[in-house]
Structure formats: C-alpha cells, structure tokens
C-alpha cells in the first residue's frame, strides 16, 4: 500500500532528524491522493501503522506484570494472527503491550506484518527487537529474512558483513546470511556463482557442525534444514554429488519427513534411482509448496506414459507458478498429455500456444505443436520430443538451486 511506504519514508526522515525538511513535505504532499482513496478501515490501518512505528523510537510504556487476563489477550493475538486477522492481532498487541517484553512486542509485530505481506515494515520491527535484545539472534535472522524480501541489495550487504565474522553469530543467522548471498547467485554467471559457493562452503560446513553440536530439543529445525540444504546445494554446484547426497541424507536422518530435504535429494537422484520418485512423492505428501516435486514428477509420468497423472501434476504445477521457462515446459507437457488422452485438438493447440507465449524461446514446444498438427491431419501416430531425466535435472539448475532452502 502506497501510504505504508510513505509513512515508512517519513519515519526514516524522523530518525534522521529530517521530518521538517522539504523532502518530508514533498512526501506528505504526495500522500494526499492515496489517503483520499482509502476506506475508513484502511485509514485506521495507516494510522495504527504510523503509531506503531513511533514505538521504534520512543520509550516503551512502564512494564506491567503478566496476569491471566493479559496472557489470554496475548493468546487471542496469536490466534488472530493465525487466522490472518492482522488488524485485530496488532490492535491486541497495542492494547496489552505493557504486559509483554518490548522486544517480543516488536518481534510479534514484525511477524504479523511479514505474514500480511509487508516485509519492509516487518524488517523495521525485527531490527528493533534485535536492537533491544541482541542476545536473541533469531530476531536478527528474521530481520535479514524480511529485509531480503523488501530490499535484497541491503540484505546482501548485511549478510556480507555478518559472514566476514561468522563465528560471532549463531548458526541461525549464518544460515540466513549464506542463503541471501547464494540466492543472489541465481542472477550471476555460473563461474561467479561457483566462486562464491567455494568461499561459502567452509562457512556452511562449520555452521552445520555447530548445529550438530546442539541438542535436538534446542535445534531450530528450519534453520538447520536451511543450512543442510544449502551445503548440499553448494556441493552440487561444485560437482561433488556424493557429498551433496550425504548431506541431504544426514538431514533426513534427523527429520525424515522434511519436504525441502526430500525435494533436494529427490532432484539429485532423479533419473538415476527410484528413490528419487519416492522422495519427491513424499515431499508432496508432506506439504511441499515448491513447484519442483510437481515438475519432476510430471516429467516422470510423461516419459512413462502415465498421461492422466501427468496432466493433474502439470495443472498443480502451473497453479504454484515458476519462471517463464519452467511454466512453459510444464504447459508443453500438459499439451502432450492432453493430446495423448484424446482431449479436443483445440484444447491441445491452445495449451501449446500458452507454452510458447510463456517462453517464446521454447523451440521444442513449437516443434511438438507442428508434430501434433501434422499427425492430426494425417492420422499418424505422434512422435513427441521430450528431454531425458538427466537433461531436465540439469536445466534450470540455477533457478532451483538455493531457492529451495528458503
């Protein structure tokens, strides 16, 4: 929402002692239009957002001793957050904040704004939580996470600073910082990406080892899985597939149902072992929200002529979404499955057209469409051009690598 950006900009100017400057006036002038277009509910949200931002620079209210009523209200705030009732959750925190540690109030506000899709606001509250309770490095990890969504460049800079002194930080922070740096390699040439992977490998090895020294009860599961997955990805990217496999399996020994690890190992083994299919299917059953299990399983079903299953998996993959190239290939497989299932020619052509529109450089989809047209006219058996499992696994490596560890 434009008004939230504007309020944050004014907040930043206030921090810089510039909130009476011409720049601040210009922001206020520009905010009149957006303000007028808001409903009363939205206006209240903006007012409360602005008021909550003041808490980042002001002394918190005098602390009150937690009692059963305040605890009940805090629980109510958690439940409201779970239900996606962000305004209500924030309102309860506002009303009862004197009973809650200020760092926790900021952390909870950050979590709510993050869930509500406002990572910039979330990053401000997480940063504040960490500033008042620096011994809780989970707050720092959450700050990096939110900042990476809101401003990847700034997050990368922070991550770099942290990684230069990585032993000073908790493994949860290091995992997040490495993830930020490696995710940025998706936009880098392969050689640079590999170079960075080489630099980060020893840091990740040390981080995984530090995690392993922790007891299972104190282990932050998502951060551990992130570190293990990232290290596996790093091994893959430098061609050490055996170490990658060992890393994923090591993670799965501790958390056998973890969908990220199952997906990573499934992809690594795809085309070489039936375990790949078991892993990918299990990842799906365990609630993976990634496109990759669907993508690889759809390909597997296609080349094994299980067209109805392939069709269903393709449709699910498309609804999850991915890069233009990946979606184009899935659409292409869907068109092939539709053709083989005897669905109307118009539908098949429309699906091929969608595949080509999604990625105009998908020449194979164009050739398969031509093959379909020729076969339809001559009543011949269609010959489809599809990639081998190995080729599918190697393609879009940069896209899926490191993103899975999020």
């Amino acid at each position: 929402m434009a008004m939230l950006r504007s309020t944050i900009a004014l907040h930043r100017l206030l921090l810089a002692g510039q909130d009476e400057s011409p720049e601040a006036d210009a922001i206020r002038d520009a905010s009149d239009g957006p303000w007028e277009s808001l409903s009363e509910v939205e206006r209240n949200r903006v007012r409360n957002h602005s008021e909550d931002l003041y808490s980042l620079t002001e002394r918190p209210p005098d602390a009150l001793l937690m009692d059963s009523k305040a605890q009940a209200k805090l629980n109510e705030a958690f439940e409201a957050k779970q239900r996606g009732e962000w305004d209500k959750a924030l309102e309860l925190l506002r009303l009862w904040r004197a009973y809650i540690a200020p760092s926790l109030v900021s952390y909870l506000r950050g979590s709510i704004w993050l869930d509500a899709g406002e990572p910039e606001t979330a990053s401000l509250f997480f940063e504040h939580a960490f500033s008042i309770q620096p011994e809780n490095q989970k707050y720092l990890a959450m700050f990096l996470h939110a900042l990476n969504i809101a401003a990847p460049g700034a997050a990368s800079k922070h991550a770099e600073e942290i990684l230069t002194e990585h032993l000073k930080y908790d493994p949860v922070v290091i995992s997040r910082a490495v993830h930020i740096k490696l995710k940025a390699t998706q936009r880098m040439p392969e050689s640079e990406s590999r170079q960075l992977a080489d630099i980060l490998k020893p840091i990740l090895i040390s981080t995984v080892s530090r995690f392993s020294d922790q007891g299972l009860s104190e282990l932050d599961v998502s951060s551990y899985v992130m570190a293990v997955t990232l290290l596996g990805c790093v091994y893959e990217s430098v061609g050490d597939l055996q170490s990658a496999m060992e890393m994923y399996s090591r993670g799965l020994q501790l958390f056998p149902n973890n969908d990220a690890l199952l997906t990573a190992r499934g992809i690594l083994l795809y085309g070489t072992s039936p375990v790949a299919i078991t892993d990918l299917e299990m990842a799906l059953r365990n609630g993976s929200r990634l496109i990759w299990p669907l993508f690889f399983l759809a390909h597997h079903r296609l080349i094994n002529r299980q067209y109805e299953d392939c069709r269903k998996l393709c449709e699910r993959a498309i609804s999850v979404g991915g890069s233009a190239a990946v979606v184009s290939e899935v659409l292409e497989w869907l068109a092939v499955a539709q053709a083989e299932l005897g669905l109307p020619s118009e539908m098949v052509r429309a699906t091929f057209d969608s595949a080509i529109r999604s990625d105009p450089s998908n020449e194979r989809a164009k050739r398969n469409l031509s093959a379909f047209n020729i076969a339809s006219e001559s009543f011949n058996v269609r010959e489809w051009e599809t990639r081998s499992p190995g080729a599918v696994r190697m393609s879009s490596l940069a896209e899926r690598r490191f993103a899975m560890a999020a």
Partner: protein
Amino acid sequence: MPRVFRVMKKDVDGLPIVSATGLGVRSGIDVDLDPEGYVLVNCKGMSVAPNWRDINVERLPKRLRAIVPGARGSNNTSCFRSGSGAFGRGVFAKGLILEPDSATHGNVAPVLSVPFDSYTADLAATRPDWEKDEA
C-alpha cells in the same frame, strides 16, 4: 457557509499563511488551467475536510497523536477551521464554492473559470475567516 478544516502553516498574526500549500493551491496539481491560464471548473480546488480528524494522518501535526494515533505531520502547521454550516455543496466565499467529493473530503473550487491569480486572491481573501481549531 459550510464548516471546513485544513492543515496550514500559521502566520505571526495567528492566521494561515497564504501559499500554494497553505491557504492556496498548486497549479497543475490541485487545479487545472486552460492554455490562457484560466482555472478549469472541474470540481478541483483547495483540499478541505469536514473534520480535522479526517485529514491525512501524515499532514496532521504530530502533537495531535493523543487524539489521532499516528499523526505524523509537521508541528509547524495547525488545523484551521472556517465556516459553521453543514459540509455540503454550496457557496464558500466570494467566487468560491465547496465541492464535496466524499463524506470526508471536498475542494474549495472557483464558481466560474477565472484567471489563476484571481482564484488564489479569492482564496487569500478568506484568510480572516480561518481560526485554529484542534479541539
């Protein structure tokens, strides 16, 4: 005359300062001009609200936070009130008309298409009618 509120900088005499963002308008933003420099009569004009609590929270002076949470405007500005009638379309002052565009916002627009300077002079002429009101 309709009762309206606007946030403006206060002059030494306690009345609003006449300026493009004070008691006045910005040409091309608050109002549109024809090629001859006449203000178009298209309901645009100087922005006002029926209550100062309805005004953009980023304009309301910070000192009013206790009444309106999140107020983030400059403390060098004040909420001014003019008129006492209902917030509806009608004559605001000589040459000026109030054109509400919602229940919480309206524009003080020219009645007729007049040169820009003439319109701003009409607005400036209302200066004595404005009074600080943050109650």
